[in-house]
């Protein structure tokens, strides 16, 4: 366990016991189940973690709500749509331009990213109902903007007062001739953003995907769960296009509504963020027979590995040659770009607490930089994101999640047409290429620590006891961590940098990590006269 220890006396198990002792007994029992000290050996074989269960009230958590997962994460990035938040002003306001999911307007010039739309519900609406106002809001949006489509997102009060937003959507779609999708993603649903992902997936699948059939070239793929933070999707596309592979649509970074309607014509789905989008991948496979593979575009090695999955899937010598050629060239350039930073990063220890995938996705690139991920955990993931999909059957859905609808999907009589035959599919499955995700801790060796839905007090103790060189987290934690004098990397917004995905992104990432760890400004934090006794006196002045 050496890599995490600051001194031989630190023992992870006792650290865990100590930290939970800070909670009231009942809370301690609950939190204990969210922490796993990894043993050597097979992933998940003997160890399990609790995840996707409610956060204890009063605990300071990183988590957001269902609305944030639906509107904020999955639907918001679709750039040629008008997204209307139905509720009081706040929710729409806070999710206005804050996630850095970048969008470039298509030929129709439609780009509503810099706009925020809300019904700004007032007490009158809460008392007498908000359906009329919502209908009128949709009418006004349609008249002023004529967007490709409109989405409606319910916030907490809407569910309670019983507005039927789906009926309103249906009526207004008829009236305006513009597709209107309604999402019942009230903030209190589920236990985190995760519920919102699922709700978003369902509606996209039923109302958008599959609307327009359009034959596509042989090597056409979709990328699922890639939100184009800091331009990641563009770097990924660049690489695939270089391999002459067409990326038909990306869910939902830089996504146009019209591309979404055709997405089912792709041959293969690549799943980046397993947590937020695996529902859609599953449903598209069931209905249209599109196989999917889990990928990771972060870091040259993972990127190359992901590209080889595509090569394996299409199983075409020409294509495979192209892909290998591109990999060779790009990896070399990336290594050249990263090389200067390696010396300064060697052996640095990093902790990652973020999202439902990123805390895993970034581990390999850190290792490529010579750094050691020692503690990690997700904010809103499920057990399979830790332990691997094989545990899914063993996961019991609790009261908080059971109300999130599971769609029954059947193969489409006309349009179910897998690009590869059953036998080859089976083989790829067995090889772990298709429909498979081993989860985070397959990549985390013994002596590391996994903490799900980390709380503030746990984060504090980790920093004080283990003095990491870097902690990856989000905006709420960033300045907490840095006040300890420890640099923090935001893996939601990349600290307004990027792209980090793909080959060129890896170089940007290395450059930024070098800054966080080697910027001399950090050395200034401690005052030169700090420990002068006669000076400390003044501290109480």
């Amino acid at each position, binding site marked *: 366990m050496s890599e995490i220890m600051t001194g031989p006396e630190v023992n992870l198990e006792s650290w865990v016991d100590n930290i939970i002792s800070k909670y009231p007994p009942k809370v301690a029992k609950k939190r204990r189940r969210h922490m796993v000290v990894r043993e050597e050996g097979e992933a998940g074989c003997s160890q399990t973690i609790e995840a996707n269960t409610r956060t204890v009230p009063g605990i300071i958590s990183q988590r957001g709500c269902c609305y944030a997962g639906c509107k904020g994460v999955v639907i918001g990035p679709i750039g040629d749509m008008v997204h209307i938040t139905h509720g009081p002003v706040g929710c729409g306001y806070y999710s206005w331009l804050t996630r850095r999911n970048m969008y470039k307007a298509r030929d129709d*010039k439609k780009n509503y990213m810099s706009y925020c739309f809300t019904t700004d519900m007032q007490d009158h609406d809460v008392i007498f109902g908000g359906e009329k106002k919502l209908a009128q809001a949709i009418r006004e949006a349609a008249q002023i903007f004529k967007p490709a489509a409109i989405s409606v997102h319910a916030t*907490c009060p809407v569910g309670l007062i019983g507005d039927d937003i789906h009926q309103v959507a249906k009526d207004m779609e008829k009236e305006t001739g513009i597709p209107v999708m309604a999402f019942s993603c009230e903030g209190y649903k589920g236990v985190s953003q995760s519920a919102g992902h699922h709700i978003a997936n369902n509606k996209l699948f039923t109302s958008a995907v599959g609307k327009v059939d359009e034959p596509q070239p042989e090597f056409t793929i979709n990328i699922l769960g890639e939100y184009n933070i800091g331009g990641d999707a563009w770097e990924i596309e660049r690489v695939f296009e270089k391999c002459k592979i067409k990326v038909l649509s990306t869910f939902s970074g830089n996504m146009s509504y019209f591309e979404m309607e055709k997405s089912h014509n792709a041959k293969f789905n690549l799943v980046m963020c397993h947590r937020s989008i695996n529902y859609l991948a599953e449903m598209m496979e069931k209905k249209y027979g599109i196989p999917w593979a889990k990928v990771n575009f972060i870091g040259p090695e993972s990127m190359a590995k992901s590209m080889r999955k595509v090569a394996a899937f299409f199983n075409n010598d020409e294509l495979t040659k192209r892909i290998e050629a591109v990999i060779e060239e790009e990896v070399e350039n990336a290594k050249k770009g990263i090389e200067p930073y390696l010396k300064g990063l060697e052996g640095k220890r990093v902790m990652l607490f973020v999202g439902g995938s990123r805390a895993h996705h970034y581990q390999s690139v850190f290792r490529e930089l010579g750094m050691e991920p020692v503690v990690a955990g997700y904010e809103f993931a499920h057990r399979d994101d830790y332990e691997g999909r094989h545990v899914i059957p063993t996961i019991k859905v609790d009261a908080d999640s059971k109300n999130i609808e599971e769609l029954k999907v059947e193969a489409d009589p006309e349009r179910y047409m897998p690009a590869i035959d059953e036998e080859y599919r089976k083989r790829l499955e067995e090889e772990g290429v298709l429909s498979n995700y081993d989860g985070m801790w397959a990549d985390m060796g013994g002596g590391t620590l996994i903490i799900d839905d980390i709380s503030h007090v746990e984060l504090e103790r980790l920093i004080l006891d283990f003095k990491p060189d870097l902690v990856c987290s989000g905006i*709420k934690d960033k300045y907490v961590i840095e006040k300890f004098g420890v640099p923090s990397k935001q893996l939601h917004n990349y600290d307004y940098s990027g792209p980090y995905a793909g080959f060129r992104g890896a170089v940007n990432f290395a450059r930024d990590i070098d800054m966080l760890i080697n910027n001399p400004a950090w050395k200034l934090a401690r005052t030169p006269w700090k420990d002068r006794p006669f000076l400390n006196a003044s501290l109480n002045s």
Partner: protein
Amino acid sequence: MLHHTPDEISERHALKINPAKTCQPIGAMYAALGIHGCLPHSHGSQGCCSYHRSHLTRHYKEPVMASTSSFTEGASVFGGGPNLRQSLKTIFQVYEPDIVAVHTTCLSETIGDDLPSIIKGAVEDKTVPEGKHVIYCNTPSYVGSHVTGYSNMAAGIVKCLCEKDETESKRINVIPGFTDPSDMRKIKGMLKEMKADFIMFPDTSGVLDTPQTAEYKMYPDGGAKISDIMRAGGSSLSLCLGRWSSEAAGVELEKKCSVPFKVLDLPIGVLATDRFVEAVSQEMGLPVPKSIRDERGKLVDMLTDYQQYLYKKKVAIFGDPDTVIPMTEFLLSAGMMPKHIITGTPGKAFDKRIDALMKEHGHDYEYNCSNSADLFYLHQLIKKEPVDLLIGNTYGKYIAAEENIPFVRFGFPILDRVGHSHFPKAGYMGGMHFISGVINTLLDKMDRDTPEDMTMELVA
């Protein structure tokens, strides 16, 4: 970036586009952070607390600690009482604050949770430890704005903490409006320069502008001390700096502790600061020290030295009433012409006050003033009647870029530039800092607009 905004202004009855306000709870959370050792608590879904913490963090670039009742679907059906009780139990054991300040959300308000009795219960059965405090206020997100939330928490602080005290005293309470720590620090600074005996709350200075010392403090050194707030009931006068955000607390102090109150504008600009200094000097019978007179004179000097860049320049300004009103007066006193004056916060009193200011300055030119307005409307106004300068929060930059108007950031939030936490807009020095920004921004544009075959002015 805002290409889709049409020139023609069409009436809207339901759709708000690019709001110039947000919801109550964030204001309550901010006000609560102005108490030393306080953990704000959001009684609602996790998302609210997460959004408010994130947003405040983006504005202050500082840790913003707060907890939540983490409502689930069950709680929203059967009520959030148990969540709040569980929260208090956990918070006091794990995070050890001196005080927890609870505010509601649209969810708990729609359910109708009865905070007073829940908290009363928690106090009685010692879920709230001896010597610890739990205060609260109601902040329905579907009423008013973030400013209302700040006001409600300020009043809640009084309601829950201030104690009546009849003994004679010459001391003022200062209740600053919703503004940055730098402003609160500056206001305290002026009071100290005048040697006034005062109690100020909320006070976020020292809480949301803390130093980097490689030593994290969950409860930073700053903030109003609980013991001081309690004593506020014994002061001789309350100065409420901002009708929208601070009057309610003054009213509450009068009602509960019969401390008379005076409502003033935030001391932004020459005249509003004059009135503040005047009020303190009068109430406390204190002279105005040379240091303050000199600072004032330097601001006036700047206004006259650079008048040619300010005089009769058309300005569009938006933000919160308590900051926009004195700033509008400041612009008028500097000879500028506010043309479009907008707040997202509801309240006809805003329009009335702006009209009054225009009259006081003897203006008869046409201008647009409106409350409960949004930035989409402001943008359309600007398209119809262009301005030389736009003043407002970060969101204004998309309008400024689209219309190529010089832009100066002002108010809440400022997410994309640095400085507001440390360089005040309040007080005479704050006026100098702000107006230098205006002058330099206008000069930047003049330089940029110099034709290629000519030479930029060397001197301004």
